[in-house]
């Protein structure tokens, strides 16, 4: 297994600097506030530039399908920068979840058919796996795919589908009869506007991330890859998504810390800057530690995912659980340190708070991921034995 790197290469740092400049210009909070009230919830022009100028839409898609063929480390960097600015875009849905699912599950012909469109940003895709009230992960998927005319048809409901209303291509996880757990899961492709699909944009706690409920009524669907064989790759895809999300969360947490510091260094109370009070200073020191810790977890998970896929599940759960608690903590502290202004609508901190809150439960809440870490260790599903470095 290749060495895990604890620093970014010069190229990666340049990539990040470029992204940071782009995102700062493309997604000021005024723009975030404007977009979150629009119907698609993102700016198609910015999305096109992200795809065309930066190659972001196909970042992890192999070059032979029109992508850039980068790994999760670079994707993590991109997610981190998007998280910093609360970018409103169907990136997690299309470039992370759907692209990875197609790469891992689709046949060669299917990849050739769909990946170039995703990589160019023309095709927006998403992955529909969760169902109303279901627990995290892919094991609880219950939707049944029925055989129909030599193909399959889907009936049932998918919930909390990220950018489900925006997607041209829906990748839908469903079950062939009589199997459970990872076994018996298949992935199907359905056009977003296919007859029998009704899509409803959901009212969300975090308006910077679009979710949809999709109802399928006997919708003809194209099987991706082998029947009943998609389970492990679907689980991996969600783990990739969790790592990407953890990196996004690290970026958001870092931004919260920076903005809060900037504010309290200027804000006067009792004739002195709020930042000069020792109790505040000590909490900010702890906050920096939390932010650095989740960056480490998020970066490490991305490195491991590229270098040592057997450890993917353990590392993904570690990073997601770490990021969930720390990002929310950072958001709570940020509001608190802003004082009253912090919980007003017009102050921006609340936007990150809502993203932190939605990120906490998206792709599995921290308690679920912690439990899963231990299952990985028990089952030796992970070869990355945790180390007691500080002993």
């Amino acid at each position: 297994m290749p060495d895990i790197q604890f620093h970014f290469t010069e190229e990666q740092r340049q990539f990040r600097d470029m992204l940071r400049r782009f995102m700062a210009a493309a997604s000021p909070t005024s723009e975030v506030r404007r977009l979150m009230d629009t119907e698609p919830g993102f700016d198609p022009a910015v999305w096109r530039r992200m795809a065309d100028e930066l190659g972001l839409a196909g970042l992890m898609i192999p070059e032979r399908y029109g992508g850039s063929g980068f790994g999760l480390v670079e994707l993590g960097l991109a997610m981190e920068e998007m998280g910093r600015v609360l970018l409103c875009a169907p990136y997690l849905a299309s470039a992370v979840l759907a692209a990875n699912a197609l790469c891992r599950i689709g046949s060669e012909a299917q990849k050739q058919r769909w990946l170039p469109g995703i990589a160019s940003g023309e095709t927006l895709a998403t992955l529909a796996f969760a169902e109303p009230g279901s627990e995290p992960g892919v094991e609880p998927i219950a939707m049944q795919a029925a055989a129909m005319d030599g193909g399959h048809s889907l009936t049932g409901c998918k919930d909390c589908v990220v950018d489900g209303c925006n997607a041209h291509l829906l990748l839908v996880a469903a079950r062939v009869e009589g199997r459970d757990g990872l076994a018996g899961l298949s992935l199907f492709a359905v056009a977003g506007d296919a007859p029998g699909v009704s899509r409803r944009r959901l009212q969300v706690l975090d308006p910077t991330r679009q979710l949809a409920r999709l109802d399928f009524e006997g919708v003809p669907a194209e099987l991706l890859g082998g029947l009943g064989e998609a389970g492990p790759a679907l689980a991996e895809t969600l783990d990739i998504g969790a790592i990407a999300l953890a990196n996004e969360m690290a970026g958001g947490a870092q931004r919260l810390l920076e903005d809060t510091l900037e504010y309290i260094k200027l804000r006067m109370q009792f004739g002195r800057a709020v930042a000069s009070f020792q109790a505040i200073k000590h909490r900010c020191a702890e906050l920096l530690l939390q932010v650095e810790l989740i960056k480490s977890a998020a970066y490490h998970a991305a490195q491991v995912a590229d270098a040592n896929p057997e450890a993917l599940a353990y590392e993904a759960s570690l990073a997601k659980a770490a990021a969930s608690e720390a990002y929310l903590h950072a958001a709570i502290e940020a509001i608190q340190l802003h004082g009253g202004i912090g919980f007003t609508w017009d102050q921006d901190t609340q936007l990150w708070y809502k993203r932190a809150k939605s990120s906490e439960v998206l792709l599995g809440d921290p308690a679920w991921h912690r439990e899963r870490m231990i299952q990985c260790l028990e089952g030796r599903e992970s070869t990355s034995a945790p180390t007691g470095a500080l002993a």
Partner: protein
Amino acid sequence: MSASAEAAVRDEVRAWLNDHWDPNAGLVEWRTKLVESGWGAPDWPTEWHGRGLSAELTRVVEREFARIGAVGVATGGIRLLAAATLLEHGSEAQKAQFLRRILTGEDVWCQLFSEPGSGSDLAGALTRAEFDGQRWTVNGQKVWTTSAHHADWGLLLARTDWDAPKHQGLSYFVIDMRQPGVEVQPLKQMNGYASFNQVFFNDAEVKAEHLVGKLGQGWTVAMTTLAHERRRADGLRSGRADVASEARQRGTIHEEEAQETATVMAPYKWYPQRAGRVDLALPNALASGRIGNPALRQELARLLILSSSAEWTARRARAAQQHGQPQGPEGSLGKLAASHVARLAARVHTMIAGADALLAGEDGPENGLIAEILLSVPAVSIAGGTDEIQRNIIAERVLGMPKEPRFDQGPFRDVATNASRD
């Protein structure tokens, strides 16, 4: 308290209620009777609409009202804080003008202390009041004012001397809220509601006789208001309200009272103090089936431990007062506890909701209620005095730890403020 004194009061109020209570009277008409008899505010002094009774005997009276479902005087909003402040610091003329209409509910009051530049640091107020020999002219901005949009009168803390040290340059006024120089704007919170207002003063006027206490002693007067506010911040329902009515309520007066209550309570929808909603946790965990999740069980138990212990701590503090121990800063402990409770409650609600915690409005758990809780909790530890201020109060006043070194003691003109930094 002797049992005989208790019995005497009970008999007297019972007889009076028997003679006078009329569930079909008009609300103001009935409360006017209460004010005249002294039974509406029995702990107030006899010269001002009360009977000078002890807290214990006042409770006896309240129980009699509750027993037959008789309506009491108006208590909503901050009017009782206004009354307590005026009783202690107001002129005779002020008491005569305001106290009666506070009790009858004819006047609505609001509190104008906090400013955008001085939230925790109330004494850093920058709103100025200038006297031209006849009246005061007020300019500036207040914030976090509940009910300002339908208030008749405001309790205003304003700076009248910029050369005095910070705490000595403030004065306390009653300001007429129904005048052109006062503009009220709702302040939208991150949860989408507007529990508070901003109030802008542009050459607003205050009559000379509406200065409360002496010129430059506004901070002392404000401390009285704040002490009464903190006393109510122990997380328990306030004294009068926790005597639950045992009688079925009937008669038109109750409709009129219900309407009054609805108006007063409207801004309190998702007012910070409502956040947390511990009461929903166990039922929701049971109803959702997630009660079987061992990690949730641990957190739920933690929440019940914390919220119960906080409630009992507040009851201990109140019981100590009822047994003659002096009112202490227990309100600060209760306020701090409420922050912990609210945060932990949010965590538990999230665990119960699972992925549905992503959803709000009609799509969200309990028709959006859970999302509203999650988006309201951050305010609990800020509104009504931040956790940081409560910790300072506890450390200094309860634990006797040294005060912070001060950087705001010279003439206020020279103190660094947010205005001076802008």
